[in-house]
């Protein structure tokens, strides 16, 4: 069977690209001919600008017509990136709908959807938006999500019938990337062979909640024993909130016995080697749809502690402990490591080491407010601060206009302008090119899956 996959693809380093490589390899192993079409040039055989242009969407339709099956690894930016004008959106929507309708056996794997923007919208614009998304997501032959939580969200947000949404095992296509046993993995990573090792791994971002894991470790009564927490990952986006969060992690790890922050690039193989080396994963996320890390933990038979956010509760298996607050997190870690909780542990040096910067303080306020909002208005989000497209903060383009003025004075000015313009024009062009370049810088896209 000839399968077309529509998705970001390496060397793009997003989680969905990494996921697609594994899906494509699995399908090829099953004997299918697999082609990938990515939104930008990549290691995929095809690329088409379907994220921004109807022409790109129609190119994908043409490829889809030549395939037997079309898999779309969907998140909103995949097909509606940087589209802000209403007429643009409608054109793009129509093209996508045409593709979903006429493409060969189109199957949609929904990784993210605009749940929060749609839930509870009863105003006319909201109703139209819900109807448009419902129609679009119902057009493919099958629409998949990874967890039941996501299915419920999608139903609430769009009004789709639950029966029209199929659950797809998240780790179905995941491949084992690290060989060897725990002992060897620990030796290679320089970890003590006998201790109990917790692991929090992934890009270092505030919503991952790895700081919660360190604080929870500080509450364990280890008596200087052999219980460790390794926070492993790198910075994906160098934004102020992420940088201050990483600084916080450094401070916490430095002040908490047994905690270590391993900053740096983590290859896929190294990622899995850490999982093999650990005894349990700690994933106290504050916000997430679903977790590829949890799937990889299951792949290697490692238990995990996860917070009850997004679809994690649905992803959990018998070996997964789902926690609802920091007390449960500490208790779960203590139970797994076989140590008691320390009395009065909140006064531990780890907490004292934390000096919040302004950004940290704002981050805490934002995160706590988000948690509170979820409790009282589930599925809603704070009004989004509109992202600048760059042009708003930049001065207007330089335009050379003819000097005004009447009489001899004006004539002299215009004559000088004519004589010198050829010298100025290259400079003006360069300034405008730099301005255009800055305006086109795109905000980095973040994906949670790995």
């Amino acid at each position, binding site marked *: 069977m000839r399968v077309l996959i529509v998705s970001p693809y*390496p*060397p*793009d*380093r997003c989680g969905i690209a990494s996921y697609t*490589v594994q899906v*494509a*390899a699995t399908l*090829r*192993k099953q004997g299918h001919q697999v082609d990938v079409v990515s939104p*930008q*040039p*990549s*290691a*995929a*055989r095809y690329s088409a600008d379907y994220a921004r242009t109807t022409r790109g969407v129609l190119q994908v339709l043409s490829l889809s017509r030549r395939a037997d099956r079309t898999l779309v690894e969907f998140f909103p930016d995949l097909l509606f990136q940087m589209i802000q004008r209403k007429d643009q959106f409608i054109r793009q929507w129509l093209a996508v709908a045409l593709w979903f309708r006429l493409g060969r056996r189109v199957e949609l794997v929904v990784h993210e959807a605009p749940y929060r923007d749609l839930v509870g919208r009863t105003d006319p614009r909201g109703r139209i938006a819900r109807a448009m998304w419902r129609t679009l997501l119902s057009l493919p032959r099958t629409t998949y999500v990874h967890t039941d939580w996501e299915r419920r969200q999608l139903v609430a947000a769009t009004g789709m019938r639950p029966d029209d949404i199929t659950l797809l095992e998240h780790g179905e296509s995941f*491949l*084992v*990337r*690290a*060989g060897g046993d725990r002992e060897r993995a620990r030796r290679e990573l320089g970890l003590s062979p006998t201790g109990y090792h917790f692991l929090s791994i992934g890009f270092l971002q505030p919503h991952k909640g790895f700081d919660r894991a360190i604080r929870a470790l500080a509450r364990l009564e280890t008596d200087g024993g052999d219980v460790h927490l390794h926070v492993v990952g790198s910075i994906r986006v160098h934004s102020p909130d992420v940088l201050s969060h990483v600084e916080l992690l450094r401070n916490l790890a430095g002040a908490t016995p047994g905690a270590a922050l391993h900053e*740096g*690039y*983590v*290859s*896929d*193989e*190294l990622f899995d*080697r850490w999982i093999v080396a650990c005894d349990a994963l700690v994933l106290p996320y504050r916000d997430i749809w679903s977790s590829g890390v949890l799937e990889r933990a299951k792949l290697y038979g490692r238990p995990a502690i996860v917070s009850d956010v997004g679809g994690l509760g649905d992803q959990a298996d018998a070996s997964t402990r789902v926690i609802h607050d920091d007390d449960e997190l500490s208790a779960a870690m203590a139970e797994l490591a076989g140590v008691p909780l320390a009395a009065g542990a909140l006064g531990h040096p780890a907490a004292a080491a934390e000096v919040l910067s302004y950004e940290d303080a704002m981050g805490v306020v934002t995160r706590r407010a988000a948690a509170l909002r979820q409790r009282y208005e589930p599925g809603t989000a704070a009004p989004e601060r509109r992202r600048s497209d760059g042009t708003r903060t930049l001065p207007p383009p330089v335009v050379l206009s003819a000097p005004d003025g009447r009489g001899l004075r004006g004539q002299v000015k215009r004559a000088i302008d004519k004589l010198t313009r050829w010298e100025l024009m290259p400079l003006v062009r360069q300034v405008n*090119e730099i301005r255009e*370049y800055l305006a086109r*810088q*795109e905000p*980095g896209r973040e994906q949670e899956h790995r």
Partner: protein
Amino acid sequence: MTNEHRADRRVALVCNRFGPDVAGGAELVMAELGQGLHGQGWEVDVITSAARDLYTWKNELPEGTSVERGLRVLRFRTVLGADQKARNRIGGLIGAGADVPLADQYRWMNAGVRVPGMHEYLVDHASEYRALLFAPYLFWTTFACAEIAPERTILHPCLHDEPEARLEIFRPMFEGSRGILFQTGPEQDLGRSLFTLPARTALVGSGIHPPAGYDAEGFRRRHGIEGEFILYAGRREWGKGWPELLRHLEFANGHLPRPLPLVTCGVGDVGAVPRNVRVTDLGYLSDEERSNAMAAATVYVQPSAMESFSRTVMEAWLAGTVVVANAASAVVAWHCERSGAGLFYRDRYEFAEALRLLADRRETRTAMACRGREYVLQNYRWPDVLGRVERAIEEWT
């Protein structure tokens, strides 16, 4: 991927171009490594593109599998990005040292030449090799494919001190590979200063085959070249310091008692030549004829500031010819200082004076050249280099 299909002595060399008439230092190293490892009993696959020319990237060589001098060669089709304007614009900013956002770094890399079939092959077959050797670092073939199986990826980066080396997109490749082979100490130092390198790195050098003999007179006769001349062999392009060499020589020839003609071989446009500089372009020469040219030259010049090893400098020394090199290349300056066989310059004035000294003092020139030959024979013979590479593969994978 699992290790169960891994063949104990099967390696893949992954490079952007490969073939008997493909020019380029890193490409030559890969060809030599392939032959050498094959000679040591390794099963070697070369995974490369169907392109021959670095500038056009046209698919001139047949796609598919062939056997060339005992090596199984798999060639895949190149695809050139459509948006060259954007690539050039971003490339200009990178070259100027601008802080280019990550998304644009990716766009710049992906807008160049890509080899999707190679990526797909490696995704499906990487586990069948004990090790995958990639070179050089700057090309898409290394950038995109080295991440597929980092646990068996050995990088032979040929790293230069250039703005591109500071791009964030290269960090995963340098920091996540199983091991890295460096050719020189300064290259290794540069790698350490830019990245958090993996624990497994080795200084393996690069190898040179001493020719059976040199025919300097025959070379002069065949090409109608008389008297003293300076030689440059390599790509004639901005990145290799060619325009600066012409400018420096224009200046030097205005000050030397006798203007020195410049003989050059390799690829790339000669471009505009100053009036007092005589340039003889011999085009692409065979290895043997290039060696003869080296032996016939009075001085070999290395104007490039971005060298990771500089094979041509080794070839010149081996041929008994002294070297004048751009001090901006830490690697070549390191070779010159260690060997005592080359003068380096920081500007046109030092360039002119280096030429003057070597032109005037034949004995000095000869003594330096002898030291150069000794230096190469002691440090960079292929059997020694191969031994170090083999040890690295065996210990690391």
